[in-house]
């Protein structure tokens, strides 16, 4: 719905000959605060905790990363996993995977200060198919892919989905930077599909698609973040985080169903 609205607005504005320019706005300098990205999943490679600090808006240097933090993730059975630094500000735990229907607590100690959070790993919903077709949508040509799955009827389900694209000649996959989320309010218990419109693919592309079930606070977090970044919110603010102490970011358990397609 948001996309369709912004398309309309865009078209109208283009039709009315608008103009864009970069301006300099005098902004306050805010206190620098910790930023934690904590993602635990059922795929070991995908688990990480990253700690950095916020910066002034016009700062051109790289963001400051935080080393030497003590990080543990504890499940509701009391099993503790330690996350250790593998590169500047990035922490991992070898052999750790999150399991369905389990509650996890995060504890991060930085300079004698503790930041905590909790998350719940929902069940796993698998991808049914990822069909794609060639065509033009809103004037641009290419292949559009669609993600299909069947929603479990019993409970409220919240999803985040993402894709990685590798075109011919690329060495690595590039992630889709957009925030894609949905919930089953409109398709509870039925087979559903969503177009992966944030990106168009070319012939020969390899595409990895992840469908991730997440808990409600994480869904709300990503929903708020996508609204705020859309630029159309009347009153933007920082999304409500499950991290303590006004820390930016999130701690989430993501139950991933993964599939790979080749456009041919």
């Amino acid at each position, binding site marked *: 719905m948001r996309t*369709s609205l912004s398309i*309309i607005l865009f078209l109208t504005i283009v039709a009315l000959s608008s103009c864009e320019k970069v301006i300099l706005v005098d902004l306050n300098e805010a206190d620098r605060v910790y930023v934690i990205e904590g993602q635990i999943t059922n795929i070991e490679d995908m688990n990480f905790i990253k700690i950095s600090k916020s910066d002034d808006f016009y700062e051109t240097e790289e963001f400051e990363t935080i080393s030497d933090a003590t990080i543990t993730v504890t499940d509701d059975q009391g099993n503790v996993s330690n996350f250790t630094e593998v590169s500047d500000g990035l922490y991992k735990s070898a052999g750790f995977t999150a399991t369905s229907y389990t509650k996890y607590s995060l504890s991060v100690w930085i300079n004698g200060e503790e930041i905590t959070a909790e998350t719940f790993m929902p069940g796993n919903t698998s991808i049914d198919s990822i069909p794609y077709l060639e065509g033009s949508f809103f004037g641009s040509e290419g292949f559009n892919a669609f993600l299909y799955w069947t929603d479990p009827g019993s409970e409220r389900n919240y999803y985040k989905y993402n894709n990685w694209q590798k075109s011919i000649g690329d060495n690595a996959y590039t992630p889709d930077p957009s925030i894609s989320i949905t919930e089953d309010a409109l398709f509870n218990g039925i087979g559903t599909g969503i177009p992966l419109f944030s990106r168009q693919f070319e012939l020969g592309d390899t595409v990895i698609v992840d469908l991730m079930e997440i808990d409600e606070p994480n869904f709300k977090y990503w929903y*708020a973040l996508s609204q705020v970044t859309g630029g159309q919110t009347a009153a*933007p603010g920082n999304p409500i985080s499950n991290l303590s102490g006004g820390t930016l970011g999130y701690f989430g358990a993501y139950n991933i169903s993964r599939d790979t397609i080749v456009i041919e």
Partner: protein
Amino acid sequence: MKHILTALAILLSISLFSQKVSISGSIKDKTNGEDLIGVNVLIKELPGTGAASNVYGFYSVSLEPGTYTLMYRFVGYQTIEETITLTQNVVKNIELSPESEILEEFKVTAEKDDENIKSNEISTIKFNPKEIETIPVLFGEKDVLKTVTLLPGVKSAGEGNSGFFVRGGGADQNLILLDEAPVYNASHLLGFFSVFNSDALKDINLVKGGMPAQYGGRVSSVMDIKMKEGNSKGLSMTGGIGTISSKLTIEAPIVKDKGSFLISARRTYADIFLRFAPDTSIRDSRLYFYDLNLKANYSISEKDRIFVSGYFGRDNFSFGESFGFDWGNATGTVRWNHIYNSKLFSNTSVIFSDYKYRINIGAAGFSFGSNIRDWNFKQDFQWFANDKHNVKFGINAIYHTFSPGEIEVEEGAPISDDDVQQSFGIEGAAYIMDEFKVSSLFNIVYGIRYSNYGAMGPGDIYSYDEEGDVVDTTTYSSGQFYQWYHNLEPRIAMNYIVNDVSSIKASYARNNQYVHLLSNSTSGSPTDIWLPCSNNIQPQQSDQVTLGYFRNFKKNMFELSVEGYYKWLDRLIDYRTGAQTNFNDFVEGDLLYGSGKAYGVELLFRKKKGDFTGWIGYTLSRSLRQVDGVNNGNWYPARQDRIHDISVVTMYSFSERVAASASWVYYTGDAITFPSGKYEMNGVVYNYYTERNGYRMPNYHRIDLGVTLYGKKFKTSIDPDTGNEIKKEKKFQSNWNFSVYNAYARENAYQINFEENADTGQTEAVQLSLFKAIPSITYSFNF
């Protein structure tokens, strides 16, 4: 509150025991039979007494038997004087002739135009669309909602936006009535146009404060718009061809002097140019709106008159077959005027009002939308008790149906057809008010309005905890009320006439609002949802006091007014960050409640007569909010907290055939939330916010210029008997209007986005401006 009612009853009973006779009747325009609203009926022998015609042109004056000279006086019309000997009740219908321009040249001492001093209306803006004809507007499309923002105390909701803010209130706190029917979304094309086709309109009345008790339901203002009745003397047509739209209005009698009708239609055609596009999907796109106004009235007897009026408008946007989006209002009003006796006038209305939007995703086989529908019954009485009291009373009941999310799916679509739960409610009101002429120098309008709201089932009603999570669910059956709100709203407005040229006015009014608009976007959108009061949402409330000084100079050629106001707002609605307002059964859990205060001073200096007319308006004001859960609970400026707001409007008539106009506006930029920092997650930079509305948009200003060239208005011939030149008004009148919006091409900020530059990776602020020097041409005619 009991004391107020007792006092009211005593005051009313005084008038019951005098033996008087009355003179009553209707007042119309002689040329087209339109009812004239607010004509002063004055008695020469009794200064300070008299009456004014009501919105249906009806008047009544009660006097001791005797001989009197009555004067029927209305601005822009020739005054009629009648000497009448009254022994019993008399019906006297009057037709007034407009003061044509040639007459004005000879009549050096025009009749007194001191309505602003004598009238007990405070904080009220009145005009008819004719008066604003030459003021330049965007795309040359005359628009009452935009012109009204050029007056103090009324602020535009943004560039090219037909929404408006009155005295620090929100855009949804204005009650917009079209022939008594509430209009829920008054804008076309994302707000660039209003739904009001000015050719079909007769009279606009905006009350910013001290509302009379007959109005209620919104906490900031009432904009009462009345459609023309239609020409009851003969066929006439008005039309216009413009850069963006064309329109045509037809008026004619049904039976001469007994009934008439009006049909007015307008359509934009910007999308016609899309057909020349090379891309097929653009070629098959649509982007237009149209509206249709209809009205008919008929006098079935001397004492009964029926009115039927309706409005229908739609916006339509589609992109080939894959995507469609349409929205619009439909309203209908059936009214019955009945004159019980020479003193008691009644109007009964049944009103229907509907707003909906639909988004059709043809590509995926489903459509969704939302709908609000009202059935509204109103019974109003006006009792012309005597020469000192004019009493109005009545009742009103609205049955609301809110359907915040409706879904239709084709078979096999990846979506289930579960609608968001509907809600139902009854909004009721009863009022009584008296316009009391205490003396020739002091008059007072006082009254009280009782209003209520009953929320009813069927449905599941949720209660929420402080975090907005559901803690309890109760199921109610159809017609079962689960929450009632009752409120008493005292209203009072006073006018003390200091002398012939100056007066002091003061007012107090309380208002309650039972329906609320959920708009989570900056510009207002057709998908905004209306939400009624419930067990969670309480009615919004405002209390406003005003004080004003009015002074005229140079035989009423210049008017000056200074008005101050202070307004307290309670139980305003705000949102949690990331609130989901569309398709959310639990939307009430995403809401926060707070209070507000707005205060300011408004200055208006106006020249109403001569070749050079216009005004300077200045408003100095603040509008602040406090909401627990926003901005750490501290007070913060509302978006519409524009501290300075200036508008200068000038119109100059060079000759009978050429008129030019210019308007300049300047205001402090909106209060807005900008980031005070940034942070990175997963390679993407996000903005870090520290306070709500802690920054300002750049100050806004622009000038609009316009020139109107009129075709020859008069036929000149020589009277064969006297040899004098005779000027006769031509039947066919036309004009060309050329205008430039934002003539000095100021790049006013519409939006400022803080984002990462895709090429350099540097974060920067990007300003989007919409309209730079937009020229337009309109050809208009009437005959």
